């Protein structure tokens, strides 16, 4: 039963992934990517990775929401009213990616994976939380530093003029309203 559910989710995830690059409309591509992530997140729920699965869904849906803003800002034809292909060097890319798939799949199937050691703890999420706050604290601290640096540099890159220099920056706070 669970296996069947997994295969359905897997097919949805991959099909939605393919749809991202085959549909005409950027809006649909964004939603397709979101669907792919939701399918993957749900698949993670099947293997007791509840927190990871749900957090994947949460973060990716949020990201796709933001993506929708940028896509309409910058893309020509985001609604796909004009059928057009945005691909270039399609054949080469296809060959490379099929090659990659064959290699990876062969590796996955042929490698003699070691036996499973132990059982998942009864409360997986708690174990994760304790690891993050305990033994893996250093990792998380560096991750948060990276996140902070990203926020700052992304802002610096994206803001054309300094917020605080020159003629009064018009209404910094209504950036959201003016999307």
């Amino acid at each position, binding site marked *: 039963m669970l296996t069947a559910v997994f295969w359905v989710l897997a097919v949805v995830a991959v099909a939605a992934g393919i749809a991202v690059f085959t549909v005409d*409309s950027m*809006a*649909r591509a*964004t*939603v397709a990517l*979101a669907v792919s992530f939701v399918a993957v997140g749900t698949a993670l729920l099947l293997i007791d990775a*509840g*927190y990871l699965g*749900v*957090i994947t*869904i*949460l973060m990716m*849906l*949020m990201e*796709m*929401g*933001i993506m*929708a*803003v940028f896509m309409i800002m910058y893309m020509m034809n985001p*609604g*796909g*009213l004009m059928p057009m292909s945005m691909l270039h060097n399609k054949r080469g890319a296809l060959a490379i990616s099929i090659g990659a798939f064959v290699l990876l799949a062969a590796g996955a199937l042929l490698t003699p994976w070691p036996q499973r050691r132990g059982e998942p703890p009864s*409360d*997986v*999420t708690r174990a994760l939380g304790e690891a993050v706050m305990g033994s893996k604290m250093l990792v998380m601290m560096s991750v948060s530093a990276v996140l902070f640096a990203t926020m700052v540099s992304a802002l610096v890159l994206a803001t054309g003029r300094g917020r605080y220099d020159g003629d009064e920056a018009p*209404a910094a*706070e*209504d*950036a*959201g*309203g*003016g*999307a």
Partner: protein
Amino acid sequence: MTASPAWAVVPAAALVVVFAGAAAALDGVLDPAGRGRPMSGRLGRPLWETARLLRQRRRTTVAPDALLWRAGTAGPLVVALLMAVVVPVGGITVADPPVGLVWFNALDVALWLTVWAAGWGANSVYGLVSGYRFLSQALAYELPLMFALTAPAVAAGSLKIGQIVAAQDKTWFVVRMPAAFLVFLVAVAGFSLWGPLAYPAGRDLAGGVLAEPSGVDRLVLLAGRYALLTVGAGMSTALFLGGGAGPLLPGWLWSLLKTALVLAGLVAVRRAMPVLRADRVMRLAWLVVLPVTLLQLLVVSVLALGGS
């Protein structure tokens, strides 16, 4: 907390629909435009509206993205029902997964895309703008909401909603974290496009996301708004108001009573103030509400450390 068999989703969904209908009826009663008209006419408003919309044709627009549009309009109702799965009524819940709180949060984020798609799909300026209005409003309320959700989780030491309810056996969390409770309610209004946060469904844009859909599409979208309010009220009961705790009456009844009370408050707030524009909400959220929520979280964490 007892998890229920799979068929429990049916009564849960029915409960959501009944409460949503009651909320709509209350909205009709509170509407000053109905004053002087017989009470039966005001209470029956959800019925008249439903009949109207069932009779009405669905319409199309010029070059819509029909798939995204229909999916987007159905989205809020679907999200509300999926949220209802983890909302306990007394000691009973459809499911009580170990990450129930994150489940709720992930679903409210799912509204980002669905409401946006509902606006985008119609290919009309009003819809498009309202979709973006929702995103900008969501950016304002989402982070405070996340921290407001974190507070009860920290206090209870669990993301499991059953345990959060159980941790309130001595004092309700609303006493310990009033700011988080308030922020949560505002966020519920935000993702339900309700009251002062109905900006994406604003009258100034001919109804915003509601500008184009008609017939069943409109019915589902409107029902989704009320259902989201309902589920939000139910969740606030579980997270902050002690769930089914209370004297004399059985737990499920207490849960329903508290939910009804919160829901009535949410419905009433719509009459009390105008709609806020997203830029104002954004400023308030980031400059005032977010620091307050973080402070609240700090207090709760310190209390939790002291308690353990």
